[in-house]
């Protein structure tokens, strides 16, 4: 039976179709969320991650979604993907300083490493603590990353990954609030598995 899962649409920001398709593949009945009222029909939701930090925050403010999102994260399982995870942070430094949602401590900074930036490609993750999101996923499986910025956090790390020699936060978890730096909708069956875990939380 398909579970209702909300998917926030910030408007002409990028591709949310892939996430939608992947969620449906994972057994979700996807409901697009554009305003506060849309939250009423779902019990969990996804914050997609396309665009840039300041642009997404600007749209959250102008669409009046900030409070509804905060409220919803208190009661619903939430999954932030890539930029959707990053905006949970206190502050981001892409194209200048932008205040984030501040739901998980930390800063979003440009990756400093010897390898090519943006980090684009498949990589495996190291689970740091038990998380239902990773149930059934072993250490050799890989997820797709596509980012120049990383979420610097030490308190709520759920998984780490490596880009060359540089380790960075691949997933965070705080209660019902989860975030992943990678794109599960672009990570083949492994990604679908993770999304199914989320849908069935």
């Amino acid at each position, binding site marked *: 039976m398909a579970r209702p899962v909300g998917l926030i649409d910030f408007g002409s920001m*990028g591709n949310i179709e892939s996430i939608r398709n992947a969620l449906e593949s994972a057994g979700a009945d996807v409901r697009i969320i554009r305003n506060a009222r849309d939250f009423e029909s779902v019990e969990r939701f996804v914050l997609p991650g396309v665009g840039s930090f300041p642009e997404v925050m600007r749209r959250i403010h102008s669409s009046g979604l900030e409070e509804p999102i905060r409220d919803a994260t208190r009661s619903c399982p939430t999954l932030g993907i890539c930029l959707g995870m990053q905006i949970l942070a206190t502050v981001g430094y892409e194209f200048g300083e932008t205040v984030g949602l501040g739901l998980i401590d930390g800063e979003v900074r440009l990756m400093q490493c010897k390898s090519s930036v943006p980090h*684009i*490609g498949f990589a495996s993750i190291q689970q740091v603590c038990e998380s239902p999101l990773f149930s059934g996923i072993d250490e050799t499986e890989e997820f797709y990353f596509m980012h120049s910025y990383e979420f610097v956090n030490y308190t709520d790390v759920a998984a780490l990954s490596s880009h060359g020699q540089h380790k960075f936060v691949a997933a965070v978890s705080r209660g019902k609030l989860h975030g992943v730096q990678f794109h599960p909708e*672009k990570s083949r069956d492994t990604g679908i598995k993770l999304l199914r875990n989320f849908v069935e939380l």
Partner: protein
Amino acid sequence: MRIIAKLDVKPPYVVKPVHFEGLRKVGEPRELARKYYNQGADEVFYMDIVASLYQRDIVYGPIEAAAKELFIPFAVGGGVRDLEGMSRLFHSGADKVVINTYALQHDPSLIDRAAKQFGAQSIVVSIEAKRSGDDWECYSDCGRERSGKLVMDWAREVQERGAGELLVQSVDHDGRQIGFDIDLIRNVKQLVSIPVVAASGAGSLEHIVKLAREAQPDALALASLLHYDHSDVSAVKAVLTAKSPSE
């Protein structure tokens, strides 16, 4: 090293030009995207190679069809001129947008604007490089129009403007299956710090091993090798793993 399947599309068919000339049909976008996904491709690049040449919009139907159930990154390009067009492509299923002609010949600031709006990681700049003495010159409109800009200068410039990735194609090697233009790839790779996708020329696994060893790009884009079934993605991955087990 990511293995990318490159589809050159003249809607509604995937075609395979040689030296960026010719429109021989090799399949359909949805069918080939699926085929290469099943072979283990890390990404699919879809290039509408005639949109700029015919001065028309990219055709969306085949893109949407190919993107369905393709749970790997899908980059799309062809005739992209503005942010609105990019947005439409993202909504049609693209995860990354590929640009060349418009930015190269008309307005490079498109790159800056796109990176600000959509994030650098979603902007790929494609370079059609043609040897010119000791250098390479950038071409556009499917390898037809000269630009007067040198590849090395343009690569540096687009990185500064915020492009997230470079797709480096060679007009001299395209479709020939004689091996890559290794000097070209190596020079670009040494110059920039953003990921470099090497394309054009793979005809055998040996060519790929040689390129990996001598130029070390971040990813490979394959077309003829796959379309003509001279090899497949899993064989390519296997030979690259064998070459360097630690990677």
